């Protein structure tokens, strides 16, 4: 190969003529060299942002996804017990051998400094699967040093759960370093006695419905911003620049006030004793007992979020519409199309990139929106992000929060992929 190259390079071979630069280096190679320098320069320019994104964005997302399957608590706390449990068929209370191993595990754990003790996380972890498990672990572990064989009686006397095969099945199941149980829980499912994944009781299903509601609310809000934003964007695009800028300021005004302030303002307006209801009562349109419930329910979430996300729809729409010359509409009319037909067949198709961009923006922002539903959503206006936050902050079940978050992320990516297949991301015009 090298020889062939050399033969071609010296140029005396009459058949093969390859373009060379003035100093005899093949043109392709010089070009590559020049290109490489340009590529390195481009890479250097984006490196800081790339590093920043890697550290503060991709890495945490990776961590979050890892946390949704990471399951170290049981493995760390009960190595001997898990070893002894191997081969247990799960139908009856395990043998004395297992309980001896359990006692040994707990005794070793108690030797450790307090901060390194693993029985606390173990109790919390088992409690996710079986309520009262935390109590069982906590009440027993202190007494373990005083236990005498036979350990089985000692443990079952200390807490009834140790005599329940279901509890041991949980220990066995979660005694692996990776778990699917957070995802099982996030999809409103659970393990039955045989270890099969089944749907939860109807009154304990939360998350799937919440995902659906989040999806529906986001779609609804996207459509509302489109319905409200399209006319104003169109109007701005046909106004002279000076007036359009004034209107643009009005559209952007919400951006300049804090989200919290805006949402609070909505509370002032929407509550039962709020401005809107008071006005309606005072002008006699509704009776005092007929006040609308405009917040702490789905309406509150929809109204406030539509307002907050409107600019994300208007801006891409406006920037696309601004570039559509009025002569297209005129041409269509001169060709005999009624104003409606001209708009539908000629103008509207050209705004599609803007609509797509605005819809994707609004939809993706609203599907993960947290603060507004938290403040004005009440029970029926909650979204999945509120549940994720609850697990992060209150129940401290980070694994479940991570699983919910991962499902949300994957869902958004799937939707984006579908959008890309249908419309093409190249057609997005953000301004």
């Amino acid at each position, binding site marked *: 190969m090298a020889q062939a190259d050399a033969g071609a390079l010296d140029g005396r071979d009459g058949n093969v003529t390859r373009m060379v630069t003035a100093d005899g280096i093949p043109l392709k190679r010089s070009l590559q060299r020049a290109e490489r320098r340009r590529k390195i320069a481009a890479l250097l320019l984006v490196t800081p942002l790339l590093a920043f994104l890697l550290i503060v964005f991709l890495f945490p997302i990776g961590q979050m996804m890892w946390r949704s399957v990471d399951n170290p608590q049981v493995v760390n706390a009960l190595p001997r017990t898990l070893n002894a449990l191997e081969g247990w068929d799960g139908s009856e209370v395990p043998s004395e051998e297992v309980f001896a191993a359990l006692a040994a595990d707990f005794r070793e754990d108690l030797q450790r400094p307090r901060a390194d003790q693993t029985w606390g996380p173990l109790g919390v972890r088992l409690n996710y699967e079986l309520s009262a498990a935390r109590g069982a672990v906590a009440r027993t572990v202190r007494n373990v040093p005083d236990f005498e064989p036979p350990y089985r009686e000692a443990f079952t006397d200390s807490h009834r759960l140790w005599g329940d095969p279901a509890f041991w099945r949980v220990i066995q199941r979660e005694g692996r370093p990776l778990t699917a149980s957070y995802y099982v829980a996030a999809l409103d499912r659970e393990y039955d006695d045989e270890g099969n994944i089944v749907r939860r009781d109807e009154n304990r299903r939360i998350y799937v419905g919440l995902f659906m509601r989040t999806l529906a609310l986001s779609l609804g809000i996207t459509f509302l911003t489109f319905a409200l934003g399209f006319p104003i964007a169109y109007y701005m695009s046909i106004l002279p620049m000076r007036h359009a800028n004034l209107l643009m300021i009005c559209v952007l005004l919400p951006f300049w006030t804090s989200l919290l302030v805006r949402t609070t303002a909505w509370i002032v307006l929407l509550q039962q004793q709020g401005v809107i209801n008071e006005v309606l009562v005072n002008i006699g349109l509704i009776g005092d007992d007929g006040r609308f419930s405009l917040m702490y329910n789905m309406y509150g979430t929809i109204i406030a979020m539509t307002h907050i996300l409107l600019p994300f729809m208007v801006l891409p729409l406006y920037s696309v519409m601004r570039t559509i010359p009025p*002569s*297209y509409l005129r041409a269509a*009319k*001169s*060709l*005999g*199309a009624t104003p409606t037909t001209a708009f539908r*067949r*000629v103008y509207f198709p*050209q705004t599609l990139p803007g609509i797509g961009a605005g819809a994707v923006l609004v939809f993706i922002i609203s599907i993960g929106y947290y603060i507004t539903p938290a403040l004005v959503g009440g029970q029926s206006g909650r979204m999945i992000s509120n549940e994720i936050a609850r697990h992060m902050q209150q129940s401290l079940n980070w694994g479940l929060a991570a699983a919910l978050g991962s499902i949300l992320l994957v869902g958004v990516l799937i939707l984006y992929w579908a959008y890309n297949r249908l419309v093409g991301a190249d057609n997005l015009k953000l301004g």
Partner: protein
Amino acid sequence: MVGNDHDTAFVKFDRVQKSYDGETLVVKDLNLGIGKGEFMTMLGPSGSGKTTCLMMLAGFETATFGDILLDGKPINNIPPHKRGIGMVFQNYALFPHMTVGENLSFPLEVRGMGKDEREKKVKRALDMVEMGKFGGRRPAQLSGGQQQRIALARALVFEPELVLMDEPLGALDKNLREQMQFEIKHIHDNLGVTVVYVTHDQSEALTMSDRIAVFDDGRIQQLATPDDLYERPENAFVAAFIGENNTLRGKVVGVDGDHCTVRLDDGSKVEALAVNIEGEGARSTLSLRPERVSIAPETADNVFEGVVQELIYLGDHIRVRVSVGGNDDFIVKVPNSANGRQVKKGETLKLGWSKADCRALDPS
């Protein structure tokens, strides 16, 4: 000439005025009749009101006062899509999301024409502009000249009796523009369609038009055939706007029938044709085409001497800038022939011209 009879004109502007802001008139008292099958050009500098007139005719602007009649019927209150007027726009306005074929098919579709007939007409229109193979392309894949042809075909495909063109060749380069001028003229002759053409390019207007309306300041300054406009401008604006023109300024000192004598500001006297002067004692602008000035004439009505200031070589002829009668920008064209006279810079030339070629016009 067609269309001269104002009452039977196909398109008629009757005392049309237009104002955008209620303070100034963009179009001041426009009266214009365009005959059936005529190629009428509205020519003028930007801001002269010509495009506004076209837009009023198309229906995109409304006349503030006066009537516009199409085939004898007032169209002021008819919306553009019901006027059935074809229009070619400055930037073509081809719909970017449709193919060429769909663009052409659009006016036929909105008229509810069947598919077979549409395809036949689209094909015929594409063949007419020699773009038969391009029906499946998008406008963005075409060159400027090709887009221009498609825009033309689209304006004609639904067989309107009147086609408006708003500086359609403005975006093309010079060679292509000249070729398209020829083709548009050719199509006009073949189809017999009435064309109203707006341009600021005087050579375009002279090449293509049956008649030209020269616009300035919201008025028609002169409405005439191309040769009339060039040979017999009626006022100083038209004389200066159409073609190259030598201007001499002075005062009328004597009028004798069709002719008059004008004393230039440096004291010399010129015999000229009295075209548009207010009478003895009034100031006047004399207009004289460079090619009508002869060098070292044997006899002439007016004989002057001038010093050559500059020579500009233009291939087929040489432009000689001479200072004559107080005007340093007096141009004389010297043909570049083998035995022609050689002119040098600084030389004093004897120049002469006939009084029939020198037109005394209004002071400008």
